[in-house]
């Protein structure tokens, strides 16, 4: 009975931490009292390696799990059903992998260490657009960032335990009929990659990570900002870029808490990127009692937005938010100004680009975009990356290249530390307690293994993008007082 009681106490402690305590880590073998006293664990890599280097297929490492007090850094007033304590809150405790994979020995016959890449690099047919695909320019930059990280690792000796090179196994992300799933199967079972990085399209990436889960492969996402990507509870999935949830929150805080606007309209692409991108903005506006005036959608590739803008103009908004690609965003902005609509124009991170500036011209002045990192940051690592990228590809690295470089660097680090074992590669990333210091800034992984770092605003001034933190602009944020879930209240009683 004692064993049962201890087990229940451990489960209870895990539950308590998941539901009500500040961000910290918790071991499933601690009692509730011990857990409440626990301070955030700082696991060093040697401890992690010691625990995960098991020989038995039945053994799972006894390592502290990350927990978060609040999912997605959601302020109290933006929680869904804010007046009602939910029965259960998800994504507050780090997922575990309990399978036998850690016991698989490192193979002897490998000549290169293969890492998969899935991204839109060759034009295909897109389900989202019903025509030509549209994300190749982003995918190619992502591939370049990944390549640079691989080449630099190889220049330093490759996989150091065996002195063999890393090899990037590149697959095109074809959006037609779920082809991305087939590509991941090929990488897992034929190419025999050790981990995969990709992709950009939210639907394709969802398909891909389900395959990675079954095949037990670490997946690093550096370009899909769809909030639901990480909301799948897959213990093999990581993300190193701030998502649309957080970018919506900073726009909400800017629009409502700082500028005190009341009348906001949205125009978005009709694909998954637009549909899921604005979701938190829509919900957050409603929860702050300032519901969006109207939400208009357009087909990717459209050039005429009269219908949508006419409807928006009728609502007399103070600001218009666009969620879609840079090209359409700039065309919409130009059309707005041509119609005499001089409202504040805000947009998603894809619009904070050179393409947007080129198409929008002078109209771009004053445009505000959410952005997942701060390229203006003074950091020798970032400068070195820019220099190397320019020398290698003759172009400036943009956000997809930078995040791909970080994501691939994280995978390479994990492989160097863990060795050639898919489960252990996952472990060293999942149990990493320190933020990854990347060229895009610090990347602290949350309990959901998502990028918990800060997001920014990009503002166009004199034809250039300038990046600002909340602090720079004095953007207020909602409180995090938080309400326990009903399940926890019952547990405590």
């Amino acid at each position, binding site marked *: 009975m004692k064993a049962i009681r201890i087990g229940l106490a451990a489960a209870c402690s895990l539950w308590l931490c998941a539901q009500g305590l500040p961000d910290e880590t918790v071991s499933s073998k601690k009692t509730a009292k011990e857990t409440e006293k626990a301070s955030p664990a700082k696991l060093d890599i040697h401890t992690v390696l010691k625990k995960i280097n098991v020989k038995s297929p039945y053994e799972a490492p006894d390592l502290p799990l990350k927990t978060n007090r609040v999912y997605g850094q959601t302020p109290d007033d933006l929680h869904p059903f804010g007046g009602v304590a939910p029965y259960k809150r998800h994504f507050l405790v780090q997922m575990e992998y309990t399978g036998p994979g850690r016991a698989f020995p490192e193979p002897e016959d490998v000549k290169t260490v293969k890492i998969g890449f899935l991204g839109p690099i060759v034009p295909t047919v897109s389900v989202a657009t019903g025509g030509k695909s549209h994300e190749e320019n982003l995918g190619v930059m992502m591939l370049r960032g990944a390549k640079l990280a691989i080449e630099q690792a190889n220049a330093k000796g490759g996989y150091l335990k065996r002195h063999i090179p890393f090899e990037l196994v590149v697959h095109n992300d074809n959006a037609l009929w779920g082809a991305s799933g087939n590509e991941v199967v090929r990488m897992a079972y034929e190419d025999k990659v050790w981990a995969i990085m990709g992709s950009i399209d939210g639907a394709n990436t969802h398909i891909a990570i*389900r395959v990675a889960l079954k095949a037990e492969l670490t997946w690093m996402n550096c370009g899909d900002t769809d909030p639901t990507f990480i909301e799948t509870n897959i213990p093999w999935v990581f993300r190193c870029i701030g998502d649309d949830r957080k970018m919506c929150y900073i726009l909400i805080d800017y629009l409502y808490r700082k500028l005190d606007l009341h009348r906001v309209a949205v125009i978005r692409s009709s694909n998954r990127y637009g549909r899921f991108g604005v979701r938190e903005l829509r919900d957050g506006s409603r929860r702050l009692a300032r519901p969006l005036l109207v939400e208009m959608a357009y087909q990717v590739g459209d050039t005429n937005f009269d219908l949508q803008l006419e409807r928006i103009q009728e609502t007399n908004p103070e600001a218009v938010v666009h969620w879609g690609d840079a090209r359409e965003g700039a065309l919409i902005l130009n059309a707005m100004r041509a119609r005499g609509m001089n409202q504040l124009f805000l947009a998603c991170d894809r619009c904070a680009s050179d393409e947007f500036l080129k198409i929008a011209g002078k109209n771009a002045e004053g445009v505000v975009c959410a952005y997942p990192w701060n390229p203006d940051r003074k950091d020798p690592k970032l400068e070195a990356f820019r220099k190397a990228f320019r020398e290698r590809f003759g172009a400036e690295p943009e956000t997809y290249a930078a995040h791909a470089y970080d994501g691939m660097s994280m995978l390479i680090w994990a492989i160097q530390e863990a060795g050639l074992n898919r489960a252990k590669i996952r472990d060293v990333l999942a149990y990493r307690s320190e933020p990854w210091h990347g060229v895009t800034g610090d990347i602290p992984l949350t309990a959901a293994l998502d990028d918990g770092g800060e997001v920014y605003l990009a503002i166009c001034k004199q034809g250039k993008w300038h990046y600002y933190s909340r602090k720079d602009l004095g953007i207020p944020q909602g409180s995090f007082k938080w309400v326990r879930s009903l399940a926890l209240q019952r547990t405590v009683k």
Partner: protein
Amino acid sequence: MRGRYSKPFGQAALAAALAAAVWGGEAPASRPARAKEALGLPYVYTKWEHFTKKDGLPNEHIFAVKVDGPRVWVGTEDGLACYDKRTGKFRVWKEKDGLPWRVVSAIDVDPKTGDVWLGMFGGGLARFSAGRFDHYHQLNSGLVNDVVYGVAVEHDNVWAATTAGASRYDTVRDKWTIFTEKNAPMEEIWNYGVCYNDGLVYLGIWGSGVLEYNVATGRWKDYVDPDGEMEIDLYRDDGIVHVITTGVSYVDKILWVTTYFGACRYDGRHWRGYYQHECGLPSDFNNFVKGRSANEAWFCTDKGLGVLADFPTDTWVKYVTDGDRHDGYAFVQRGTNVVAKVHTGFNLSHNYVLCVDFDGDDAWIGTSEGLCRAIGEGITPGCVRRVKKRTQAAPE
């Protein structure tokens, strides 16, 4: 070669163990022992048989298991196997033997023809009939995608749950129908599980809950999480606990559903949600579910096997193995209250459980580290008073 038996532990021994557990020191003193006696106890499997590569399996990562009379079909990460219960031997098919793709992720058998339908993980669909594999894939058929997670035979039709929609193949008329967001209420098209029973096809769809297809009327009905939010479950019993569904099983007009966030049961009018913290589920991460009756379902999780043995009394049996010691226990629970801990010997091949199928009183269970068979002897469904006499006084 015959699989290995765990430590023999018959129901007589179990009765003694349960008696000791229920009436002895392991019973929580806070709850009157007589109440437990009145409710009775469920059947606990104490005899287990295990199968690995040494016994003839092509691979120990078991994705699918299907009982077919004297045969048990086993889908693994590297080949198809068939266990003959009469001889105790496996027959194996790999790609060199004509199997179209190495990873077999789903299996169903056509009761009319005996054809075995194989869903393959990235390899499409295959019919194994008379020793021949017929291969259906995206480029030669109406299969919507080659990543097949589930397969179910419905009359003359074969349903395939794929990563980009569902396909239905009419085997008599050689006609395919594709179901996606275009012609079915799929918010997302990422199908994960499929089952057929009693005129209804159920699709478990990742991100879109459960879809019900009425074969007679051709109409769809969708079941989603009513709160519409990914990060919470607002009310436990208001619908599916989460839209990321992983398994569906329909039996005796009861729908059992699993997700990576918990599980639930639907009787056509009421939902009941199950979370690890409040019942005998070993984990909220549920890979698969198989209902045995309206009151019994087996949940395959990443931390063991949870059996809801008796729905009306919320009685569970949670099987957890200690593979290193070839040992294991079953925890009999009413809700969160552990009423008995039964030593079963080596039970599950691994706690990472992926699939299950029933074979009369027995059950075949696929894990990520081998296949096992729970051998039932004299099963009585639900909870019954298995202990007639006190063997030890309960401490007061």
